């Protein structure tokens, strides 16, 4: 029972960690998707002009 009161409150750090993880990986996924769209558009425009 006593140990429940002795567990340190580090909840904010855990949330900060998971926010960083989600944000950084989301940015990478968005960048991957945008680069694919751009390359696809260019590819199609070159193919159309052939």
């Amino acid at each position, binding site marked *: 029972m006593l*140990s429940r009161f*002795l*567990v*340190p*409150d*580090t*909840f904010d*750090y*855990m949330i*900060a*960690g*998971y926010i*960083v*993880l989600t944000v*950084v*990986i989301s940015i*990478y996924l968005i960048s*991957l998707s945008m*680069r*694919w769209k751009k*390359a*696809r558009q*260019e*590819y*199609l425009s*070159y*193919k159309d*002009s052939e």
Partner: protein
Amino acid sequence: MLEKPRLLTLLDILSGLMILIAAGLVFFYAPVEQLMGQVQKVFYFHVATAWVGMLGFMVAGVAGIFYLRTDKEKWDIAGLGAVEISLIFFLVAIILGSIWARPIWNTWWTWEPRLTSAAIVELIYAAYFLLRSGLDDPDKRARFSAIYAIFGFISVPITFISIRLLRTIHPVVIGNAEAASQGGFNMDDPMKTAFFFSLAAFSVFFVDLLWHRIRLGTLQSEVNTLRVQSYEKES
């Protein structure tokens, strides 16, 4: 080339599901560690992202060997993709470690062997992109990048074993810890389940991302070829 393979769509779904299950295990199944509190839950994805980082650097080294042996562009594209993904994941691992260290070590950063060697690894692979951007000739760029990725990988096992060989405060979760380490803990069965499932989930996610990145690299290469052909036609 533009059509997405069915297997890749399945891998997208599988990796997404596995990451969600891993998060569920971390938050709702693994117990709260009594000495560190909630921040210990950062550990599961800290190790998983570091693992993916190291795995990708190894893939880049292997792709480099294959490129030097075959001279095929696909190996250069694979190596570039692996380094790009791993650089992101390794950066996340370093930041997560720093966030964990603040309440446990009472500092965001300390120049001990594991943190220092991890920072060096990150810088070595960041320089990989500087090297590539400095070379205009595609063959030379691919060859130099392959050699760099092979030699760069030497830094990865050094980082991995640094906490097992040197005096460090970084905890060793699997294996024997250095007496000076701070923040170590013994994993019970639910913790082990969350830990190993997170490793598996991030490994599948890495394969999924690498496949996407290789498709992107292949398409970009095709666009470059078409661009050159178009200029040649005009002139």
